[in-house]
């Protein structure tokens, strides 16, 4: 019986960490002992090691036996796989767009500081950009996989209702789009950009700035000053709320009064924040002092500061306009839906 005991504990080692592991071992041992006993009876002699070896050989390798007890022979199962693919697409799309924009901005700022088009420095930036996209995509893939493995293991009730699975009425194809129905692609784009914004703000704040190259030296000036830092928690809050509402909308595929109100609150908060931004002095990093150690002459620096401040202000105003439009759209949607009821 020595071999059976060793075999059983070997199977135990390969069993997944599920409840009833000892129970499985106990049942397996009892079965093997039964089988061995039966063989001994048939052979008309007491069980010996040769019989044990024969039996265990037939029963199969410990790994194989342990595998049959594994209820999750996969990392990410069929239940969450469609949603996993969807999130992966969103994340890859977001990384490709976001980092391409970053690279293009870097290239433009290089060109503006005298780096020649297609010169080695210029090509280096392009290659670095491509490398960045690939490495960030691989890292992001890892994070998404880890997140979904955790969902697979620990959130047994997780389920996304894809439109196809719901009761689907072919007549919907002929109908005009409902005012309450959502635009999936718009939502996905919004999630992507909010996510990219969130990632840059929190993990790569150093790319929010301008690189100047002059010969061997490079020189960096951040767009925003330290005053900006105290806004980051508020921006995070708004962005996260936005992503949460968007994901909720993606799942439910239809606007409700609650989601409309949530959207209005979020857009309203963004608007307030943007206005506070415009009214806060010293928030922009491009100042005469920030150019103090730069290879530029004071006149050049002054010109940069003026251009940068004007463009950033214009940028914020554009954001204010976009947010206002979104806010008005959400309010109109709410009023209309309330009137219909």
């Amino acid at each position: 019986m020595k071999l059976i005991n060793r075999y059983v504990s070997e199977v135990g080692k390969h069993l997944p960490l599920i409840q009833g592991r000892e129970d499985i071992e106990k049942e397996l041992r009892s079965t093997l002992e039964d089988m061995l006993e039966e063989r001994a009876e048939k052979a008309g002699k007491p069980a010996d090691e040769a019989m044990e070896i024969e039996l265990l050989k037939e029963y199969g390798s410990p790994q194989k036996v342990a595998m049959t007890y594994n209820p999750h022979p996969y990392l990410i199962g069929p239940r969450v796989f469609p949603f996993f693919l969807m999130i992966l697409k969103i994340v890859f799309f977001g990384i490709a767009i976001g980092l391409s924009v970053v690279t293009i901005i870097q290239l433009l700022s290089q060109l503006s500081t005298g780096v020649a088009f297609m010169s080695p420095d210029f090509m280096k930036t392009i290659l670095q950009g491509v490398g960045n996209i690939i490495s960030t995509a691989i890292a992001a893939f890892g994070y998404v996989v880890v997140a979904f493995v955790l969902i697979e293991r620990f959130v047994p009730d997780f389920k996304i209702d894809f439109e196809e699975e719901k009761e689907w009425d072919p007549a919907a194809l002929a109908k005009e789009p409902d005012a309450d129905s959502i635009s999936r692609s718009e939502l996905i784009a919004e999630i992507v950009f909010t996510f990219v914004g969130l990632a840059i703000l929190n993990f790569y704040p150093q790319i929010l700035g301008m690189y100047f190259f002059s010969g061997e030296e490079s020189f960096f000036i951040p767009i925003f000053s330290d005053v900006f830092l105290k806004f980051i928690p508020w921006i995070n809050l708004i962005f996260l709320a936005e992503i949460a509402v968007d994901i909720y909308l993606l799942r439910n595929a239809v606007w409700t009064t609650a989601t409309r109100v949530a959207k209005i609150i979020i857009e309203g908060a963004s608007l307030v924040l943007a206005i506070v931004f415009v009214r806060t002095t010293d928030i922009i990093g491009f100042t005469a002092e920030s150019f103090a150690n730069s290879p530029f002459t004071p006149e050049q620096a002054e010109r940069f500061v003026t251009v940068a401040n004007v463009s950033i202000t214009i940028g914020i105003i554009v954001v204010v306009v976009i947010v206002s439009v979104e806010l008005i759209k959400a309010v109109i949607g709410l009023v209309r839906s309330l009137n219909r009821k």
Partner: protein
Amino acid sequence: MANTESLENVVLELRRGVIVLAALSQLSTEQYGYSLLKQLSEQGLEVDQGTLYPLLRRLEAQGLLESVWKLEEARPRRYYVISAEGKKILPKLKKEWADIVSVMKKMLA
């Protein structure tokens, strides 16, 4: 080569569903895994241990079977028996099986 493999796969798929019904039908009296295996085999249904034991555990987790450990001949054995829930669904499964058989008989005739 590929043909034998796909044949094996199809046969495996066909048997998989049947084994649940076979096991449930035989467990109106309690049995331990190995005795059930032998009983199925005596009646002509050969089932791999690697299929049957995990299946019994799964059916228990689903509430269709109940189990209890008993000490017999100095050896602990886990006895399985159909639960109240299992008794409720067994007639429905039998009916389903009879329907499948009659439909397929006609189709394959």
